[in-house]
C-alpha cells in the first residue's frame, strides 16, 4: 500500500497563527482590536479593586481603609454565611454530615470499587436520614435545632440537594408516564407536568408557605422548610421530566422493539435498555435543570428562609457593616459559580465515561 501523505502544514509558526486566528480579514482585525480594548478597560480596574487595593487583614470595618474591596467583611462573617443562625456549639454536626457525604461520594469516585451499587443506594436512601437526624437533633442527646435556625450555604445545599435528588427519579417516572400507552397514566402525568411547569416557582413557594397551612386541618403543621422542599421537588421534577422525555424520544424505536422481542417486561426494558440510553442523551439538559434548581434556591428568601444570598443580604444591611454589599454579592456569585462549575465539570466526565462505547477500539 502507498504510505499516506502527511496532512498539509496548517500553522506557520506564531505569525501564521496570529494571521489565521486574529487578522484573517478586515472584520476580524477590527474585532481583535475591539476585544483588546475592552479587556484593557475592564480587567485592570477589577484586579485593582479585588486584589491590589483590597483589604484582607483586620477584623473590623475600620481596617478597610484601602480604596479596594473589603474582604474583611467576608472573613468576619464567613461562619454565618456558611451555617446561618445554626448555634455555634452545634456546628460540628453540620460538618460531620458533610464529611460523611464527601466520604461517600469519594468512595463512589474510585472506579474499581466493589459493591458500588450498595454505596450509592446508601448515599441516596440512608444518608438523608442520618443527615436529618444530625441537623435536627432531638435524638442521642443532641439538642434540637429547629429549621428556622438553619441558613447560609448549608441551607442552600440542603434545599438544592433534596430538590435535585428527588427531581431525577420523579422526573423519570413522570416522563415514562407521559409516554405510557395507558391513557389514564398518560393524562395524569401530562396534567401534573403542565401544571407545575405553568406555575412560577415563587408562586409555588408562597403556596407552600402560606396557603398550604390554611388547607390543613387544625393542629396539623408541617415544617416550613419541608413544605418548601416538597413544592420545590415537585416543580423540579416536572422540568426534569420534560428533559428526560426528550431523551426517551431520542432512543430509536428499534431499541424498544428489540427489547420487547427478547421477552423483557416493561420495567426491565426501561431500566436495562431504554433509560441508560435516554439519560445519556438527556445529560446536558438534566445538568442544565440541576444548575437552575441550585441557583434558584436563592428564591427561598421570599418565604423567610435565609440561604447563602439571603444571609449575605441580611448582614449587609447591618448598620455596623453598611456599604459592603458589593463584596457580599461578589462572594455569593463566586460560591455559586464554583458549585455550578464543579457540577458542570462532573457531568462532562460522566458523559465522557458513558460515551466510551462510541469511540473506536
Amino acid at each position, binding site marked *: 500500500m502507498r504510505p499516506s501523505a502527511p496532512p498539509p502544514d496548517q500553522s506557520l509558526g506564531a505569525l501564521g497563527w496570529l494571521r489565521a486566528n486574529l487578522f484573517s480579514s478586515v472584520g476580524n482585525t477590527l474585532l481583535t482590536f475591539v476585544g483588546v480594548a475592552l479587556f484593557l478597560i475592564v480587567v485592570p480596574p477589577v484586579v485593582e479593586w479585588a486584589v491590589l487595593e483590597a483589604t484582607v487583614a483586620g477584623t473590623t470595618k475600620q481596617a478597610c481603609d484601602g480604596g479596594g474591596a473589603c474582604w474583611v467583611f467576608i472573613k468576619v462573617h464567613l461562619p454565618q454565611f456558611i451555617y446561618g443562625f445554626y448555634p455555634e456549639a452545634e456546628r460540628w454536626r453540620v460538618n460531620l454530615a458533610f464529611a460523611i457525604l464527601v466520604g461517600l461520594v469519594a468512595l463512589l469516585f474510585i472506579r474499581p470499587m466493589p459493591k458500588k451499587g450498595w454505596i450509592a443506594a446508601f448515599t441516596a436512601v440512608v444518608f438523608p436520614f442520618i443527615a436529618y437526624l444530625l441537623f435536627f437533633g432531638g435524638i442521642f442527646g443532641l439538642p434540637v435545632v429547629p429549621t428556622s435556625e438553619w441558613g447560609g450555604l448549608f441551607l442552600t445545599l440542603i434545599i438544592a440537594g433534596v430538590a435535585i435528588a428527588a427531581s431525577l427519579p420523579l422526573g423519570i417516572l413522570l416522563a415514562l408516564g407521559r409516554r405510557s400507552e395507558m391513557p389514564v397514566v398518560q393524562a395524569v402525568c401530562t396534567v401534573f407536568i403542565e401544571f407545575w411547569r405553568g406555575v412560577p416557582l415563587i408562586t409555588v413557594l408562597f403556596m407552600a408557605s402560606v396557603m398550604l397551612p390554611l388547607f390543613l386541618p387544625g393542629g396539623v403543621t408541617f415544617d416550613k422548610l419541608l413544605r418548601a422542599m416538597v413544592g420545590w421537588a415537585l416543580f423540579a421534577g416536572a422540568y426534569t421530566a420534560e428533559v428526560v422525555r426528550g431523551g426517551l424520544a431520542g432512543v430509536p424505536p428499534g431499541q424498544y422493539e*428489540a427489547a*420487547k*422481542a427478547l421477552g*423483557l417486561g416493561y420495567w426491565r426494558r426501561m431500566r436495562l*435498555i431504554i433509560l441508560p440510553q435516554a439519560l445519556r442523551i438527556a445529560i446536558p439538559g438534566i445538568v442544565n435543570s440541576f444548575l437552575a434548581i441550585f441557583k434558584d434556591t436563592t428564591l427561598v428568601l421570599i418565604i423567610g428562609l435565609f440561604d447563602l444570598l439571603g444571609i449575605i443580604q441580611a448582614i449587609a444591611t447591618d448598620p455596623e457593616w453598611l456599604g459592603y454589599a458589593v463584596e457580599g454579592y461578589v462572594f455569593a456569585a463566586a460560591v455559586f459559580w464554583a458549585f455550578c462549575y464543579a457540577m458542570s465539570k462532573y457531568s462532562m466526565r460522566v458523559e465522557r465515561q458513558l460515551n466510551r462505547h*462510541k469511540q473506536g477500539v
Partner: protein
Amino acid sequence: MTRVNDSNADSGDVRSAVRFEDVNKWFGDFQVLRDINLDVAPGERIVVCGPSGSGKSTLIRCVNRLEPHQTGRIVVNDVELTEDVRQIERVRREVGMVFQTFNLFPHLTVLENCTLAPIWVRKVPKAEAQALAMEYLERVQIPEKAEAFPGQLSGGQQQRVAIARALAMQPRIMLFDEPTSALDPEMIKEVLDVMVELARSGMTMLVVTHEMGFAKEVADRVVFMDEGEIVEEAPPRKFFGEPETVRARQFLSQILAH
C-alpha cells in the same frame, strides 16, 4: 385445553409452531393484512416474499406481537396472542427475532447483548449465560468480538451478533425481517451463511427476504404476498419454476431482472 406448551416441552408436542386463522389488521383505515391463513409446522422454513408494502414484514411482526392484529387468531406454540401481556411475553421468550437494522443495544458489549435476556428473562446464572453466549458467538463466527461494542463492528458483524443474541434465548422459532436489506453487498453472504447453517440445524424459521437464492436453497415453502394477502404458497421449486398467479410471475420477473 391442558398446558402442553410448557417452555420445556419439545417441539414435538406442538402441532403447529405458528398458526394464523383469518387474521386481519389495519393501520388506521388502511388494511395491511387480509384474511391471512397460514400454518407453520415445527422445523419448517418459510420464506415470505412480495413487493414492498405487501404486508410481509407486518405478517411476521404479528408473530411476536410487535404489531397487534385486530381480528382472527394467531397461535404460537399453542399460546394464543391476545391483549394479555403475560401470554405475549411467554410467546416472546420462545420466538427470536432478527431485524433489518440489527437493533443491537449500543451501550452494552457484544457479550452483554447476548447474555442480557437469558439472565433477566430466563433467569440463567450469569456464568452459564456467558458460556452459552460464547457458544452462539462462535457459531456465528465472531467470538473474538465479545468485548467490543456494537458501534465498533461492521454491519455484517452486527447482524451476526444479533442472530447470536436471539439464539442465546434458545428460541423454538426464529423470525428474520429482511435481515440483509441494510447490508453492503459484500456482507450479505456472511449473514446468509449463518442463516443457512441455522436452517440446516432444524430451526423453525420465518424469513422475510428478497434473497431468492436463499429461498431456493433452504425454504420448505415460499409464501408470496401482495396487497396484504397471501397470493401463493408453494415449495420453492414450484414457486420459482411455474408460479401460478400473474402477480407472482410479475414479481419474479422484476426481482430476477436485475
